């Protein structure tokens, strides 16, 4: 098996759009399954009432991470062909902070707001409008921020390369951290309570 299939020329751009659509369906489906169409549930993460955001996110990350790692190690996947977003450490950190603010103030992130809007939540739809507006502002003032935007580039770099720790060991470390986090989350939820189990439940 030669993965990633697209990079090996197994199919073309037009088919890839169909693939995108199908993958998107899966993405949206599981987001909604976990309750991420509900802004209250998402925000509850940050009040320690309902730590689903952390659980879902990190379960997803370690699932994919483990899958990618093992597929690459046994030679079925060519890791060098997998896309890595170039790192621009300072603007990404600042952007992340802003995003965190937006998350609590608005109650969603771009992906979840789509799910929210799709299930009828007006606040999700308004949030989407906000995103479009925010991007528009960014685009308009881009000449002013472009220097900052392009500052502190580190190229395409993994944690393994940065800390010079073998990839496999980092996989283990991330898994440990995630499991630890899950255990702590279960404990915190029991203590502080008030999980949002379902809409209007």
């Amino acid at each position, binding site marked *: 098996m*030669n993965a990633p299939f*697209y*990079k*090996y*020329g197994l199919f*073309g751009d037009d088919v890839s759009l169909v693939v995108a659509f199908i993958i998107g369906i899966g993405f949206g489906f599981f987001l909604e399954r976990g309750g991420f169409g509900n802004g209250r549930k998402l925000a509850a993460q940050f009040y320690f009432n309902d730590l689903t955001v952390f659980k879902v996110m990190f379960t997803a990350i*370690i699932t994919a991470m*483990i899958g*990618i*790692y*093992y597929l*690459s*190690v046994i*030679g079925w996947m*060519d*890791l*060098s*062909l997998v*896309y890595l*977003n170039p790192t621009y450490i300072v603007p990404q950190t600042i952007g992340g902070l802003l995003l965190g603010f937006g998350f609590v103030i608005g109650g969603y992130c771009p992906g979840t707001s789509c799910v929210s809007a799709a299930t009828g939540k007006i606040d999700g739809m308004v949030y989407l409008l906000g995103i479009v507006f925010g991007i528009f502002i960014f685009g308009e003032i881009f000449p002013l921020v472009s220097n900052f935007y392009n500052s502190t580039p580190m190229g395409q770099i993994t944690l393994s390369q940065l800390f010079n720790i*073998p*990839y*496999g*060991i980092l*996989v*283990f470390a*991330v*898994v*440990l951290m*995630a*499991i630890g986090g*899950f*255990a702590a989350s*279960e404990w915190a939820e029991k203590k502080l309570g008030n999980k949002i189990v379902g809409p209007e439940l």
Partner: protein
Amino acid sequence: MNNPFSKLSMNKKLALIAFILGLVAVFAGNPYRGNSVTIDTKDLALIVDKTVDHVSPEELADWIIQGKVDFKLLDLRAEKEFNEYHIPVAELVPLAELNEHPLLRNEKVVLYSEGGIHSAQAWMLLRAKGYKAVYMLFGGLEEWTDKILFPKIPQNATQEQLATFKKMKEVSKFFGGSPQTDTGKQEVASTKPMPKLEMPSGTSAPTAGKKKKKEGC
């Protein structure tokens, strides 16, 4: 004896599986392939035998004139030689840098060097790495110069030959060359000036439509 694993709750089962997978990862090794490759020698020999490993200068000239953008043309020589003259739309990738050069796997790649040796080596390298659509320019730059830039027609040509030559003249002029009449005299190669490095009119730069596909989010 009851299986202790099944007594755990679902969440704990999942956590245990994740833990084991993570632990094994410590010993499982490097996920990157690095520079090692597997070569199917029989496969390669077959390709060479069927001569589907190269394109002729005429074919390449045709592609360029038609403005095709579905292939990459790589010049394997040194920068100095590249700057003196290179086939239009070619990219400079000295042989030593070929391994590091990013290439899409679903793109046609045509390699050329002065003659045929370097392009053959490069062909081998890319084939070994698993690229499927790799071709050498038959005869390299020498053949290109001979057949496309300065095509010759013998003095006593037949009707047929004249007809073919007419087309060659057009092609040659397109690339800035000059068609010759073969007088049988030995011409010194250096007396023929190489065409200026202008993009022939009508060939749009391959960058339009070949923008690097965004993969960010």
